[in-house]
Every structure is written in C-alpha cells, then in structure tokens.
C-alpha cells in the first residue's frame, strides 16, 4: 500500500498535486479555509467527510472549473488558474451529480466524451477495458435507464477515455448500495495498479481504508492528513466497546456517568471514551461495568476496542471549537431539559 515503492515515469518528477493555502468563499460562507496538501504520483488519495465540508469546491478548483479567492494549486506542475487549458487535457473529472446524457446510449455517451478529446473508444480500449467490459452487455441502453452502480461505472469510463494522468472522482459512491460501493473501490484498485493517480471524495468513513492516504475534511478545513492506519494510531485515549440489551437506555445512562468523555452508538456496540486518560484501560472498563451494573444494566459487557477512521473523525470534530456539531444548539435528546 506504500506510495513510495512505485515506479515513477521518466521526466515526471514532482508531486501530482500541490495545494497551498487555498481559500474560497461563497457570500459569507467560507467553503475552503487555508487548505494545503501534497499528493504524490500514483497515489489513491481520499478526501473523507460529510456534505458541506468543502470537498466539491476543492475538486472544482483542482480541475479548473472554479478559481480560488486566495492561495494556489498545481496539478502535474500546471497552475490550476493560469494553465487551465493544458490542465484539462491531462485530468479526468467525475462530478458528484450524474452528468452524462440520459437520452444517449452507453456507447454514444462514451463516443461523445472520446471525440471531445479527439480520440475513439477503439484507440483507448485498453485503458477503459476493466470497467467497460462490465458495461458492454448494456451498450445500446439509454444511460438514464441504468442502475445506480452501472451509471457510476459509465461515468468513470467517460472520465477515463482520454487517458488522464490524474483522475478526480467527487463522491462516486454516494447513494450507491454497500455491495456496489465495494465493487467500485475494487475497480479503483485495478486502476491504481496501472499507475494512475486517483483523488476520491466520500462521506462513507468505511471507505477510507481503501486509500493510500486520506485527508479528513470538515467545515472547509483538513482535520488531519495521513495514512488511514496513522490516523487511527493517533487516536489518543482508550476506546471501549459497550454491549447491553437495552442499548439506547444504556447510552443515555453512560452520557450521565461522571467520567464520560464521549458515548456514541456504532452498529450494535456503544463506543465509549473516558475523561481519565491517565488510567489503564482495564481499570476504566471495570469502572464503567460497575456503573452500568448499578444502573440495572447487569447484562452489559465492556471490552477495549481498536478505533476506526470514523472514531478519529468524531474525536477531531469534537476538538474543533468552530464545528457546528459542538454548537449547543445541536444538543442531543436525553440531555439537559429532557
């Protein structure tokens, strides 16, 4: 998974993408707030975060569809503002909204995008084959009549047909079911084997581990940038998993525990962290178990857990004083006046 041991094309020194203090405002909203990062050639890089975090604005700047208010960015050494013509020949972009022609067939859409870049499906077949092979049985079908997963694959084909060196995919898996999402990421893995630099955004935290490196993005800022394993390793307090038959009631009880730092449901387990960072995890676990026992949750079990990227994201947004999620107005039911 390392980005280091990949062969680099001759004469292609330097990073694939470099962004320095990018800022973009829309009216009073700061969509991007001093965003800086470097992405290496051949990396599969993910911007992970919810809607409204600035991912789409960032992508649109990097593919020259928007200009930044401040800061600068280069893609393949080309300035995204000054060199936009040259840049557009060398990048592929798949927008978040389905942006193909619904009344054209699969094949017609692809032919159209190939011709815009002065090429043909036949000439580029090797590049698109891993994906197009799955679409060929439907090549006469209108794009608008494809299933969600198939639409995404066609859009990916259209973004690849001019053989870009860097591929930008803005939320390619949003609204797509869990199985199709997995298949889509398998395809990105195949493209990575071919050496393509791919930048993906997603609101699904579980997709982060498919990337070489990720940036956690929220409120127009990067909350962290590293390999997924390093993001997880930086989680700085013991994490406990609590199971109880009466899960919701146990959650509300835990929130009232004197030493609670955070308590959230994750699937069938409650994730709990404690304010006492100096105690061993076994001791904290025993205390929490005792507390729950005393409250009547005698079936509760408590065990240490390895954090996920989602735990890390939550921990980092809790730290951010400007986060709308720490705003008292978005408080939880079961708190205060309830």
């Amino acid at each position, binding site marked *: 998974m390392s980005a280091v041991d990949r062969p680099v094309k001759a004469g292609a020194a330097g990073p694939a993408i470099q962004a320095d203090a990018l800022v973009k405002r829309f009216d009073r909203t700061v969509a991007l707030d001093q965003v800086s990062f470097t992405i290496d050639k051949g990396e599969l890089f993910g911007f992970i975060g*919810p809607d*409204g975090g600035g991912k789409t604005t960032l992508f649109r700047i990097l593919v020259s569809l928007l200009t930044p208010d401040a800061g600068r960015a280069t893609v393949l050494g080309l300035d995204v503002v000054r060199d936009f013509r040259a840049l557009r020949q060398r990048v592929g972009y798949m927008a978040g909204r389905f942006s193909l022609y619904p009344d054209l067939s699969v094949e017609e859409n692809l032919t159209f995008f190939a011709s815009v870049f002065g090429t043909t499906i036949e000439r580029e077949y090797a590049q698109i084959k891993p994906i197009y092979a799955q679409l060929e049985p439907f090549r006469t079908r209108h794009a608008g009549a494809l299933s969600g997963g198939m639409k995404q694959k066609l859009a990916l084909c259209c973004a690849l047909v001019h053989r870009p060196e860097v591929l930008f995919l803005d939320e390619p898996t949003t609204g797509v079911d*869990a199985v199709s999402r997995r298949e889509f990421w398998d395809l990105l893995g195949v493209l990575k084997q071919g050496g393509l630099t791919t930048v993906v955004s997603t609101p699904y935290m579980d997709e982060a581990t498919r990337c070489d490196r990720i940036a956690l993005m929220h409120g127009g800022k990067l909350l962290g940038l590293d390999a997924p394993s390093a993001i997880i390793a930086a989680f700085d307090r013991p994490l406990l998993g609590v199971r109880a038959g009466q899960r919701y009631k146990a959650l509300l009880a835990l929130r009232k525990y004197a030493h609670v730092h955070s308590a959230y*449901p994750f*699937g069938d387990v409650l994730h709990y962290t404690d304010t006492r960072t100096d105690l061993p995890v076994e001791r904290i676990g025993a205390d929490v178990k005792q507390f729950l026992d005393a409250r009547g949750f005698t079936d509760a079990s408590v065990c240490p857990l390895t954090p996920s990227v989602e735990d890390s994201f939550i921990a980092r947004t809790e730290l951010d004083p400007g986060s709308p999620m720490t705003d008292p107005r978005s408080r939880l039911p079961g708190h205060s006046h309830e």
Partner: protein
Amino acid sequence: MSEPAIQVSELSRRFGDFTAVDGVSFEVNEGEVFGFLGANGAGKTTAIRMLIGLLQPTSGTARVAGYDVATQAEQVKRRIGYMSQRFSLYEDLTPRENIRLYGGIYGLTREQIRTRTAQMLDRLGLSRVADAAVRSLPLGWRQKLAFSVALVHQPRIVFLDEPTSGVDPITRRQFWELIYDAAANGTTVLVTTHYMDEAEYCDRISIMVAGRIAAMGAPADLKRDYRVSSIDELFVQLARPDRAIDPTGATHPAGPTRPSRPEGTPL
C-alpha cells in the same frame, strides 16, 4: 392485542414484464424500528411507494395504520409521516414556516401548530434560527428538522428514505437518537439506509434482493444464523450470491460459507 402497524401480504408490483416487487410479506409492530435494506434496484422504493399509498399494488395486500393501501390510500396518508433524503422541506421557507405549512396540510388547528412549533424548535435547539431560511442551515440541522416536521401531525408510522445520506458522523448518530426517542414514544419507524452500521441500530431488518425479501430478523439473530460478523457481510452475501467477501478482502464463491438450512431456522 393491537394490530401490527404495517401488515404486508404477498405484495407484488409489475411494470410491464418487469416484476419490481415479487410477493413480499412482512409485519412491523407498533413502536418498532424496522430497517428496510436492499441493493439499488432491488425494489425498496417501489415497495415503499405502495406502502405510503402513492402506487397501486398489482396483487397482494398491505395494511398500514389499520387501513388498506389500495382502497384507503387517503386514510393511510393522513396517518403516516414521510421523509426522504431528496425532498422534505421548502428551503426558501424558515423552520417556523415549514412547520406551519405541514401542520396546516395535515389539518392541525392554529393553536396546535403554535404549541407544536414551540416544542419542536426547543427540542431541536433551533429556536435561534427559527426565522432563517432553511437553505442557510447546515445539512444535519435540516435533516433533523425534516424528521420532526414529518412527525408534526403525530403519525403512528413514519417512513424514512435514506435520511442520513451525506450527513456527518456525529449528526448521523444524533439523528438516530431522535429515531429511538420517537420509537420509545410509540411511533413505528420504517427506515432505509446504505450505512450498514445503521442497519444494526434497528430492532429488525429485512434485506430485499431482486424484488423478494431474502432475509428478515433481528440483526443479532441474522448474524448468528448466517454465521457472519456484520450485517455488511450478510448484505454482500445475499445481494451478490455469486461472491462473498472474506475478512482479508478477497472475493471467492459463496458456496461453502452459506448456510444449507432454510433462513430463519435456529442453529
């Protein structure tokens, strides 16, 4: 003993030669949180459209809140709430105006609307932005408001279609706490989602594959019966019977990992 909130029997819907929903049967009990899962195109939306009285079944029956969806659709619509990810609130209107509009549509009196508005805004902590355009609010707040608006007429059952899509992880969890809260007060919830961890928050789930319900039960029971560690794994196994995922991420034919006994039978 009260009648189930939703009672579906052999419900089918065909479009020409295509059978979108194929003889589906299930019940949802009062106060239950029922997860309605399935891959894109499996028939979930068609089934929900029938249950909320927007689409006539080709055959079979469904009773929702005690009324037949085919012959008493208007009665059904008055007793349910509905929220979808795509459209729920008028974005040019304020939270207060949205609540008044929906309250009016459902025939609440002026006094009821006033009381409910104050309660809801306080409860959601939105009093300070009650008169700001909905479009200016963060997505997570809009989704929580949309959920409350769907409950403005205190329906017995609320249908939520991908309510948390694209929402940040903390707000997503706060949203589910609103769901638990509503269920604790007796509201029945039928919810669709693509987040598999949310599937595990449900009392029971069903997984639709090609128009049929392929599996149904409490998440813990399903995981035990299918010998999988997560609902995500079960989903993959059912939605793509030709492949299954092992923990290393490699794919292989599903055969040996599938139980040979019929679904739902105890081990």
